[in-house]
C-alpha cells in the first residue's frame, strides 16, 4: 500500500528556514538525506521530491480560447507543499512511524522540529477483485 508523506509550510516558514544558520540547514539536509536512504535500504522507497520556493509558485486557471491565466498571488496563510515522500509499506502504522521519523528532522539550534507531516494513501489504478 502506497502512502504519501507531505511537508508543508507558509511563506513565512520558508523565509524563516532561509535565515537558519548554515550548520542548522546542513543538519536538516543531512537528516533528510539519511531518512530517504533509510527508506531505500528498507525496500519501501518509491519517490521523494523537494519543491521550489513559494515565491516561484504560480497559479494557473483555464482562460478563454485555451490561453491559461497565470498569477502568483496567494494568501499569506496558504500552506505550500515543501516536499514529499511516497513509500510502499505493509500497513498505515508503518507509514505513520516513518512520518514520525521525518517529523523529527532538526530545526534551529539542532533541536527536533516535530513538524506536522500529513499522511494519506496514494490511490492505485487497479480495481479490487473482491475475492
Amino acid at each position, binding site marked *: *500500500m*502506497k502512502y504519501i508523506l507531505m511537508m508543508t509550510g507558509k511563506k513565512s516558514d520558508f523565509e524563516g528556514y532561509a535565515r537558519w544558520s548554515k550548520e542548522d540547514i546542513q543538519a536538516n539536509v543531512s537528516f533528510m538525506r539519511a531518512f530517504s536512504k533509510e527508506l*531505500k*535500504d*528498507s*525496500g*519501501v*522507497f*518509491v*519517490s521523494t521530491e523537494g519543491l521550489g520556493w513559494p515565491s516561484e509558485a504560480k497559479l494557473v486557471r483555464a482562460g478563454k480560447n485555451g490561453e491559461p491565466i497565470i498569477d502568483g498571488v496567494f494568501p499569506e496563510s496558504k500552506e505550500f507543499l515543501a516536499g514529499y515522500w511516497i513509500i*510502499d509499506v*505493509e500497513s498505515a502504522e508503518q507509514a505513520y512511524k516513518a512520518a514520525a521519523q521525518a517529523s523529527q528532522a532538526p530545526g534551529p539550534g539542532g533541536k527536533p522540529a516535530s513538524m506536522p507531516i500529513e499522511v494519506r*494513501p*496514494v*490511490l*492505485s*489504478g*487497479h*480495481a*479490487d*477483485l*473482491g*475475492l
Partner: protein
Amino acid sequence: MADHQHDASIEHLLRELAPQVLGAVARRFLDFSSAEDAVQEAMIAAFTQWPQEGVPDNPRGWLIQVACRRMTDQMRSEIARRERETAVAAETENLAFLLEIEADMDPDDTLILLFMCCHSALTPSSAIALTLRAVGGLTTAEIANAFLVPEATMAQRISRAKQSIKASGVPFRLPSPRERSERLPAVLHVLYLIFSEGYASSIGSHLQRLDLAREAIRLTRNTKTLLADNSEVAGLLALMLLTDARRAARTGPDEEIIPLDKQDRTLWDRAEISEGIELLTAALSKASVGLYQLQAAIAAVHDEAEKVEDTDWPQILALYELLKRVAPSPMVTLNHAIAAAMVQGPAKGLELLRALDSDPRIAGHYRLDAVRAHLLEKTGDYEAAIKHYRIAAARTTSIPERNYLMTQAAHLAGD
C-alpha cells in the same frame, strides 16, 4: 515480428528454467541467497546473448555453468578458506562437475524454493517479490514495474527477504509431509496475492506491463504439477481461471469498472471456464473441501450462468454458508450477505451486515459501505444508499472503484 516472437519464447524458456537452475545450484553450494543472485545474473546474460547467438543445445546446462562461474567469482572475492576456494574453482570448470549437478537435479527443487520463498518469516510483499524472482524467473526490473516501485527498491526488498530466510535458518530441503501441509496455506496465499494484486493502470506506461495474473496462473499450474494430489492447489488454480475468464468484460473502454451483473458475458473466456470447472470437479471429488475450492465453486456458479438472471443464487448462498464455517472472515460475511440478499431479500442482507459493524477488522473498510449502499439501493432507500456510496468512495484507495462508487451515488441522486 519474428524477432519479437523469438524474444518472447526465449523469455518463456528462461522463466521455466530459472527455478530448476536455482534449485540445482543452491542445493550444490548450500547457499540459497548467493545462488539466487548468481542465477539472476546468468539469466540476464542469457537474455542478452541468446537472441543474437541462438539458444544453446543444452540451455539449462548453459545457465548452470554461468551461474556456477559467477558463484566462484564471488567466493574468490570474499575472504574464505583458500583450499576450498581453489578446489571448487577448479571443479566448476570441470564438465563432470556440471554434469553431476544436472544429474543431481530433483524435480522437487522448485517445490523447495516455493516453500522457502513463501516462508512465514517474510512479509507478504517480500514473499511475493522473492517468489516471482526465484520461482517465477522474473527479473527485478519486471517485478518492480509490475508493482510500480523503483527497481532499486525492489532489489533491496528481495535482498532483505533473502537475508530473513538466511537468518531464520531454513534449510534447503523439502519440508516433511506434515510441515508441507502446515505451510502450504502460506504458499497458496502468496500465489493468490500475486493474482489479485497484479492489476495496474496503463496510464503513462511505456513498457509492456507484466501480466501478473497470468504469472500467478502459470506458477500455480507448476505447483499443481508438483503437488498433483493436492485438492487445494487445484482449487486455487480453478479459482484463478474462473476469475480470469471474466477479465475482458470487467472494465470498459475508459478503464471503468463493470460489475458482475452488468458484464457482457459473451466476452467471458469459455475455454478458461471449462478448464476451471473440470479442475474443480476433480478437486471436489477428493473428500476435503477447502477455502479455495469453495471460492472456486462460487465463481463456477456465476460463470455457468449465460445470462445474469440465470445465476443460481441459492447454490451460491449455500456455498457461502459452508465457506463461513470452513474459513470465516469479514469478507466472507460481506459476500454472504450479498448472496442472502439475492435469495431472501435485501433486508436480510442488511441484517447480516450489522454483525460487521463492531468488527475491528473491517470497520472503516470501503467495501462495508459499498455493499451496504448496494443493498440499501435495492430496498429503495436511495438517500441512505447515496450516503454510503459516498462514504465508500472516500474510503477506497482504488481510482476505478472510487469513480464507480461516485457515479453510482450520482446516478441515484439524479433519479
